[in-house]
């Protein structure tokens, strides 16, 4: 039992080491020359006010540029609620028999 716990600790430290190596390779947070600041985000930042006419850029992306994604997200919510209702209300519909 002691040996098994020691092995688990060793594996956890190894996994943490690997993840920390990956994190150390990330670009520093908030620097202007990061790879995430490409032409797509530049287009959104400069054009959101003209294209959508709203001040909140996140809403402009969610409800205007990416409106299809939001539509299917609402359909996913509908499906989730439908699944819960169908699963939990079955016994009641059969006449109370469990």
């Amino acid at each position, binding site marked *: 039992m002691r040996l098994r716990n020691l092995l688990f600790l060793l594996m956890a430290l190894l996994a943490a080491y690997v993840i920390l190596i990956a994190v150390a390779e990330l670009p*520093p*947070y908030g*620097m202007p020359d990061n790879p995430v600041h490409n032409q797509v985000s530049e287009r959104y930042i400069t054009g959101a006010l003209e294209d959508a006419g709203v001040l*909140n850029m*996140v809403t402009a992306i969610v409800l205007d540029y990416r409106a299809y994604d939001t539509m299917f997200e609402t359909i996913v919510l509908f499906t989730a609620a439908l699944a819960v209702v169908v699963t939990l209300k079955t016994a009641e519909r059969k006449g109370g028999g469990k």
Partner: protein
Amino acid sequence: MSILYFTATDYRIMVLLLILVAASLALYFIKDLLHAVIVYGAYSLTMALIWLQMNTPDLAITEAAAGICMTVLMMVVIFRTSRREE
């Protein structure tokens, strides 16, 4: 490559991340599930503060609403029909 330096925001985020690590370690050791859910609420609150420090109030509002209140209430509702201890 620019020289790395820490601003005041970085130090604040570091302190919050330490609280986050402590909360997630505590989640592993707590046996009572209701207490674990409360600690998870503290975890979500810290996460919302981190989002605020990173200048994303949208995510902070969503995390505060969904993480703190919604999850805790859902677990309270589930505990009424099931066992509380692990």
